[in-house]
């Protein structure tokens, strides 16, 4: 059957078809639709596949490790920076190895369409000594999931699948496999020590990991996704990874004297396939959507071998995502002369929705903070990051999930009193609670505003773990009840809210203000 699916949805359907028993994730663009597909899938419901949002990427990976420990197949999905949060679990499950197949899907965001950096997750796979799949199109991604689970079980290794925004968020008709796998039964690991990473055992497991990493490169379930296409041209060969292959073919598929092409969509691979293209061609150009991951290893530290072109010598821009035109320029193909954007066109950045509760929170906060001057409000990741833009200009930082509270603590330690943190409800349960505990223990003179819109708004309104429990969580962490205030961010309460904010900002200890009003987008969806 053919069905039009986003690549993210194709990966999810593949996992369902491959007999996955548990799907774990925290929402993050461009990965969110993988779990959303699971949640809305009738087939997943019928098969009783576990599919619920986790508090963060680390808890998601750990739960997936548990599912795999019990012998069942598990998938976990996140955006690239989510893997930083999950890195402890991720690096160590490489050492324990798996029991049921385990795939970690990571959606990278080159050009930072919705992210703070453009880190390339292929480095994480290499770092952990585990295989990495990098699909070039939606169908390949679907097909890879089946091989990835089998490979994972054969070598007892977790497997990383790296997507990029342009693939994750592009639809194509997907041909489903007809021979679907059943879910596995509970089977505990053969070796009762496998998951016990006491140093003596971890040293043994690490040797097994290193051995497996060397062996896995010759396995067909990995290497079949790398392919060589010969061409008449002998001067220049092209190595293209993942979606870069599409941009290459877009430019040269019709030309007669095409060059030899090595398509790489799975790592690690045997040296021979690279030797093959280098033996045919004098020079090689490397096209990668991300860091010069492969290019750097081909050049080596001395870079005194064969001539290689790519991101590192400026043939391809050093950062940002690729597209057909950038690849055309790199290949020396004169691309069409195109008309520039007329000067009348103005930028249209994203902005708060009309009636958003964050607006009323920021208007009140700006007034309450006026007497202290700028530079004292540390914010976090979410729609409320838009408070950085005019006319609000309310915040001075957005670094990583949860950093608002902990940066406020550090700034207060330095003497910047008062320091204020602004964090959303979902970000708070993702990574803010431990920071708040630090503040309570240290009696930091900070004010934490939890802008509670009772959803994970920026990624499309997924369930927020804290909904209905936020007050109890804060009190449980030790916030003094008289300094835990709740306000309703509405224009009619503005004066009252400014007053409450002023009182708590002036308090020389930890105060929490929960600014609570439901996201208007979520409310709208509920009404439908």
């Amino acid at each position, binding site marked *: 059957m053919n069905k*039009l699916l986003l690549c993210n949805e194709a990966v999810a359907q593949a996992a369902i078809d491959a007999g996955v028993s548990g799907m774990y994730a925290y929402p993050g663009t461009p990965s969110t639709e993988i779990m959303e597909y699971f949640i809305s899938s009738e087939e997943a419901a019928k098969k009783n596949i576990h599919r619920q949002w986790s508090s963060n990427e680390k808890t998601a990976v750990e739960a997936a490790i548990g599912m795999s420990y019990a012998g069942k197949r598990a998938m976990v999905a996140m955006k690239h920076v989510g893997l930083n949060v999950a890195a402890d679990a991720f690096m160590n499950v490489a050492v324990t190895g798996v029991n049921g197949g385990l795939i970690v899907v990571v959606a990278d965001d080159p050009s930072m369409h919705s992210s703070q950096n453009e880190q390339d997750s292929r480095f994480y796979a290499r770092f952990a000594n585990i295989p990495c799949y990098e699909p070039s199109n939606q169908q390949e991604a679907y097909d890879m999931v089946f091989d990835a689970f089998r490979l994972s079980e054969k070598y007892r290794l977790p497997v990383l699948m790296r997507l990029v925004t342009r693939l994750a968020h*592009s639809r194509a008709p997907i041909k489903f496999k007809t021979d679907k796998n059943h879910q596995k039964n509970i089977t505990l690991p053969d070796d009762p020590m496998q998951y016990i990473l006491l140093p003596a055992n971890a040293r043994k497991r690490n040797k097994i990991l290193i051995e497996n990493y060397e062996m896995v490169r010759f396995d067909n379930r990995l290497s079949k996704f790398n392919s060589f296409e010969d061409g008449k041209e002998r001067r220049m060969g092209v190595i293209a990874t993942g979606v870069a292959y599409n941009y290459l073919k877009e430019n040269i598929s019709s030309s007669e004297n095409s060059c030899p092409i090595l398509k790489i969509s799975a790592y690690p691979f045997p040296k021979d396939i690279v030797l093959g293209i280098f033996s045919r061609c004098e020079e090689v150009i490397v096209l990668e959507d991300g860091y010069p991951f492969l290019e750097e290893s081909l050049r080596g530290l001395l870079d005194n071998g064969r001539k290689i072109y790519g991101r590192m010598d400026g043939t391809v821009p050093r950062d940002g995502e690729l597209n057909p035109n950038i690849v055309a320029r790199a290949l020396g193909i004169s691309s069409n002369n195109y008309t520039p954007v007329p000067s009348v*066109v103005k930028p*249209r950045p994203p902005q708060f929705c009309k009636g958003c509760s964050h607006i009323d929170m920021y208007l009140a906060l700006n007034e309450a903070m006026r007497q202290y001057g700028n530079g004292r409000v540390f914010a976090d990741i979410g729609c409320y990051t838009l408070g950085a833009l005019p006319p609000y200009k309310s915040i001075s930082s957005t670094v990583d999930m949860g950093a608002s509270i902990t940066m406020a603590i550090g700034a207060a330690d330095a003497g910047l009193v008062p320091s204020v943190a602004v964090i959303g409800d979902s970000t708070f349960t993702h990574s803010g609670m431990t920071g708040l505990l630090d503040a309570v223990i240290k009696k930091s003179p900070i004010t934490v505003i939890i802008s509670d819109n009772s959803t994970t708004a920026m990624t499309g309104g997924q369930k927020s773990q804290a909904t209905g429990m936020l007050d109890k969580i804060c009190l449980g962490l030790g916030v003094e009840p008289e300094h835990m205030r709740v306000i309703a961010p509405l224009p009619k309460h503005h004066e009252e809210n400014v007053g409450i904010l002023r009182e708590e900002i002036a308090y020389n200890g930890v105060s929490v203000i929960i600014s609570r009003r439901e996201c208007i987008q979520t409310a709208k969806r509920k009404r439908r």
Partner: protein
Amino acid sequence: MKKDIILSGVGGQGILTITSVIGLAAMKSGLRLKQSEVHGMSQRGGDVQSHLRISDGTIFSDLIPMGECDIIISVEPMEALRYIPWLSKNGWVITNAVPFENISGYPPISDIISELEKIDNHIIIDAGEVASRINSPLSGNIVVLGAASPYLEVVSSSSLEDAIRLFFSTKGEDIVEKNILAFNEGKRISEAIIRSKK
């Protein structure tokens, strides 16, 4: 045979809806397609676009190369101009005339219209007026789709109508019929503009 289409507008204006409708129609017509969308932060009132590529042959890139887009379909006039670098020499621009002014310093609409009129092949339609006249104010995007339908070529009007019925089927017969009406009104006005130009 191929059509490379950019659909543009502001987050929340229903770009993904009309992209999906054309995509459905192309699938039903047995064609290949790739449909690149913008999800995430920009959907909050920022500029959004979809690249929709339809062909009877292999499609490699999910993104349309600059200078090769056959049709820009825009639900907002300034957003139509943002993608001019992608438009091919003989390409068409079909756009709503009604601005969505959610930024300070939005240019005078007359400046935008005169820029649009410089493009050789353009259809500018007041989709808001049409949508409210047929008492379906949320169907402006479908009016624009109707106006673009004579230029889509690879998918017929009847297959687009079928796709509209399928897409809105869960929302009830009334919504389906209003959108079919919106589609046909857009198409009728667009065809009248073509006749008047000839």
